[in-house]
């Protein structure tokens, strides 16, 4: 449970939805955006299976466009269901974040006092 990737697993799908909500994008751009925001262990290979799952569950739609190297590249957009899911995720995330913050409020002070 202390493993960062375990903590990350549940939140990553929500974060991907947020990145796609900002603008239509594809796998590599999503992973780069997440890296920029501090998700250091994320690579395209982590993001791609999640994109498949999100599309299969109807949260994403995709358009194939020409890529500079030949094979078509999939660009993803949020579906109405995806936008709804994003809102729910953020709501749940805030509630969870607040609870964890509240619980740990005195923790850091305690550590500092020692």
């Amino acid at each position, binding site marked *: 449970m202390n493993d960062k990737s375990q903590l990350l697993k549940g939140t990553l799908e929500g974060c991907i939805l947020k990145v796609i909500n900002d603008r239509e994008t594809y*796998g*590599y751009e999503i992973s780069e955006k997440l890296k920029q925001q501090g998700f250091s262990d994320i*690579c*395209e*290979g*982590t993001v*791609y*299976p*999640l994109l*498949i*799952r999100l599309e*299969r569950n109807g949260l994403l739609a995709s358009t194939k466009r020409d*890529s*500079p*190297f*030949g*094979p*078509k*590249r*999939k660009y993803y957009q949020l579906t109405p269901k995806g936008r709804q899911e994003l809102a729910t995720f953020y709501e749940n995330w805030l509630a969870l974040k607040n609870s964890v913050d509240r619980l740990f409020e005195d923790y850091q002070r305690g550590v500092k006092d020692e």
Partner: protein
Amino acid sequence: MSNEVQVMIKQNYKFSKQLTPENERIFTDIVCYLRTSDIDELQAEEAIQQILDMFLSAQHRGEAISDVIGSDYKEFCNEIIHSSSKQRFSSKVLTFLELLLFCMVLMWVIDLAFAILPQIIKNKQINLEYTVTLGFLARVFTVLAIAYALINYIGRNSFQLAKKSRKKFFIFGCLFGLFILLPAFISYLLKDFVLFTAELHYIGLILIPSYLASRYYNRWRS
């Protein structure tokens, strides 16, 4: 196999020629593994297309594949398989039926070439009587079963098999020998069990149109 899937397979193959030898080796392992998995054919080919774009883009940026998809390629594929839709049972049956009919037509043509043509040349007359023996059917089924098992074995173990070893070469040699000898042996054993005799053109009239129909149906159903 649907038309869309066939077009994608051709395109993916064409673009994969741009890969460096090392990347092409890894890509081929991934393709074998995904194509023999039980995900829907179209989804598997789409995943292959997207992975190819990942590979070519990484190559262009000068990055190693392990930086893009991690160093455990099998795990990466398993994540994809886990996230994708499974192939429907009806689709599996249809694909198998197409394969079975293709195999029968092929064996029949081979049989014609090796058994009937020499007779025609020798006797200078066309013998339209064609005998279908149990050996013929047994040969079709053993060839199909061994080919199916071999392809699935290679696919499922593509990442391990990429590491060459003498033992694997030996096992493969034996399997290939079996592939050649077993059907021949079985059909020799059963060659005297005559199922029916029919005129040559009737057999072709049944086999070829039914193969074409199954192929046509499979291509256009999706």
